[in-house]
């Protein structure tokens, strides 16, 4: 244990903290997808990690399409036009995958009033199927004879290997907090995540669809009697979760730059943890949980060594749940005040 590594030098402390906040913001955006679906259906959508993963590929593919495969290093400003297109592509891709999951892994079961456990397992199955489909995309392309035309996208024989955005985005320092230089990329990731969160919060609390979501979350039968189309509400919930995951994927690719067919797994576990930590079913809880998890991981790395960072994060989760079993802000989606 080395408390000096964390607290010995204020600049290092800021470095660890800001680094944690940036990755935590991405956790938070992915956590929204888990929390929304849980709030409405009381189900954990384990396929949400794949919804995110498809978004990361959409970002890389957009860059390959609009820039080509030549290795390049751009400033954030230069990358913005393609990034915006990539953002739209990733949101559409992730939303489409989320709707697919809803249509084929959930709706048939919900319509048959299947036990919740069945839907959970169906989601795990969907998650595997989606991840493997991405890992086998070179074979699918081959079936259609497109593997040569699409070689830059499907990576023949290397489909399971890491896949990188050809353009790596070079961060530039904007201003200093103490001795820590805050970069444009860090700032965009955190601010974009916060803006998306507030937009979603307003959507749920102030719009007609949002009222429908809250109504179904509170009491699906009463909501149905009041004329709320619950199938539509569930669809919109998946759609919104997918859009947020697409945005998270864009920010992730901006910061990390590489993905692979199993990239969703670890991030999904972290985001799910963040959702539980903040109080699953609670939008603001997802934000708090994500940021807290990111920061605790980095502090844990500093004090105990990086091999202990997950231990620190999950011990913290257990402790929080022991004291507050419903999470930090443990309030369900349906009870959010209008």
């Amino acid at each position, binding site marked *: 244990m080395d408390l000096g*590594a964390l607290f010995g*030098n204020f600049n*290092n402390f800021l*470095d*660890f903290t800001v*680094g*944690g906040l*940036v*990755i935590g913001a991405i956790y938070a955006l992915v956590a929204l997808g888990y929390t929304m679906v849980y709030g409405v259906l009381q189900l954990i959508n384990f396929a949400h990690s794949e919804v995110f993963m498809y978004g990361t590929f959409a970002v890389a593919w957009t860059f390959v399409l609009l820039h080509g495969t030549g*290795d*390049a*290093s751009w400033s954030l400003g230069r990358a913005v036009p393609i990034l915006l297109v990539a953002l739209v592509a990733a949101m559409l891709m992730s939303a489409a995958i989320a709707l697919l999951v809803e249509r084929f892994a959930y709706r048939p079961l919900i319509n048959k009033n299947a036990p919740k456990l069945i839907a959970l397992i169906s989601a795990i199955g969907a998650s595997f199927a989606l991840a493997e489909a991405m890992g086998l995309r070179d074979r699918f392309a081959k079936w259609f004879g497109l593997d040569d035309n699409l070689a830059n996208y499907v990576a023949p*024989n290397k489909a*399971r*290997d*890491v896949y*990188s955005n*050809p353009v*790596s985005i*070079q*961060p530039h320092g904007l201003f200093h907090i103490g001795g820590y*230089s805050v*970069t444009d990329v860090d700032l965009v990731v955190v601010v974009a995540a916060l803006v998306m969160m507030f937009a979603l919060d307003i959507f749920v609390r102030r719009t007609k669809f949002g009222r429908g979501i809250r109504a179904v979350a509170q009491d699906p039968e009463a909501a149905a009697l009041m004329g709320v189309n619950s199938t539509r509400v569930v669809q919109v919930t998946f759609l919104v979760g997918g859009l947020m995951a697409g945005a998270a994927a864009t920010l*992730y690719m901006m*910061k*990390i*730059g*590489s993905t*692979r067919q*199993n*990239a969703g*797994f*670890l*991030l999904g576990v972290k985001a799910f943890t963040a959702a539980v930590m903040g109080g699953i079913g609670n939008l603001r809880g997802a934000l708090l949980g994500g940021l807290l998890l990111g920061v605790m*991981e*980095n502090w844990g*790395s*500093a004090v105990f*060594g*990086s*091999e202990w*960072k*997950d231990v620190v994060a999950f011990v913290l989760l257990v402790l929080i749940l022991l004291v507050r079993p419903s999470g930090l802000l443990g309030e369900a989606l349906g009870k959010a005040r209008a």
Partner: protein
Amino acid sequence: MIRSKKSLRAFAALAGVAALTLSACGSSNDNNKGTTGDNGGSKSALCGKNLAFLGALTGDAGALGQNMVNGINLALKQYNDKNADCKISLKTFDSQGSPDKAPALATQVINDDSIFGLIGPGFSGESLATGKTFFEAGLPSISPSATNVTITQQGWTTWHRVIGNDDAQGAADAKYLTETAGAKKVYVIDDGQDYSKGLAGKVKSSLGAAAVASDQISVGQTDMSAVVTKVKASGADAVFYGGYYTEAGLLAKQLRQGGFTGKFMSGDGSEDPNFVKVAGAAAANGALLSAPAGPAPAGFAASGLYATQAYDATNIFLAALAAGKDNAKDINAFIGSYTGDGASGPIAFDDKGDIKQSTIYVYKVADGKLDVDNPEAIK
């Protein structure tokens, strides 16, 4: 698992008995063959028989196994062209590089009477999983590519490799960092896997006081911000990473973005063009990636990493054949005392089956490309 000295002794005794029984079987077979085969004079009893290759031919690392088979086929073709009356062919066993799949294939290999020698296994995991099977069957083997240090510490006297192990690489890397690259303070990082910990640990112990600190990330980790902060805070002027190219690339990228300007070095797990793609050209430039394998000599007709080693391993078996060895025991003794110059360098084995002298090469990234043709040999 060997938990105590007692069970170790019991194991050694069992293995000894097994070896005796097997060699007894072997010699009785030879006697039978001697009455028919040797009458002709020079023609070996092994003519028309097979060498086996066990390793990844498909799957994530399939390309490496394909390289090896190319090297083996080249050696066999050259031999068979010269010895039309005594052809040797190759049987391949595709393990996909998996320690789970290799043992079943190993059983197939030892039950196939037409196989007199094994090129492989390709990787360290499958070598450890199958070594005992091959040793107890008495089948001599030469691996072109398995580098884990512990394989040759098991007492499997039929197991050999024509490539430097991870200790040799770690010691050479440490030497290169301090003597050639001029590093004074090195931060050592690994990903916690056996290969990575072994290599990084050897680098750290060889560096001695020049190793300032160490840390361990995990496989699949993508955000390295905490490690980057630690490296910068330590004042290190070089980073050594033991692990594979994905995490190595992300680490190199985030170190540079975080303002680290020192040297970045990693081992053969990172020596892959994908390292440059993940890190991005700007961050990858100047990276040093070592490997216990050099480029093929000019005019060598099989390409790819490990092709030369597989070619050399095959030629050792063929040399045993030419020297008139026709049973497993004699071939194994021949390999043990073999000395020669192969396509990958001078070859001779120590009593554990490790290559005596191996050269470690440093491959450099320049102008956004991993230069695979002009590595620098660490002397």
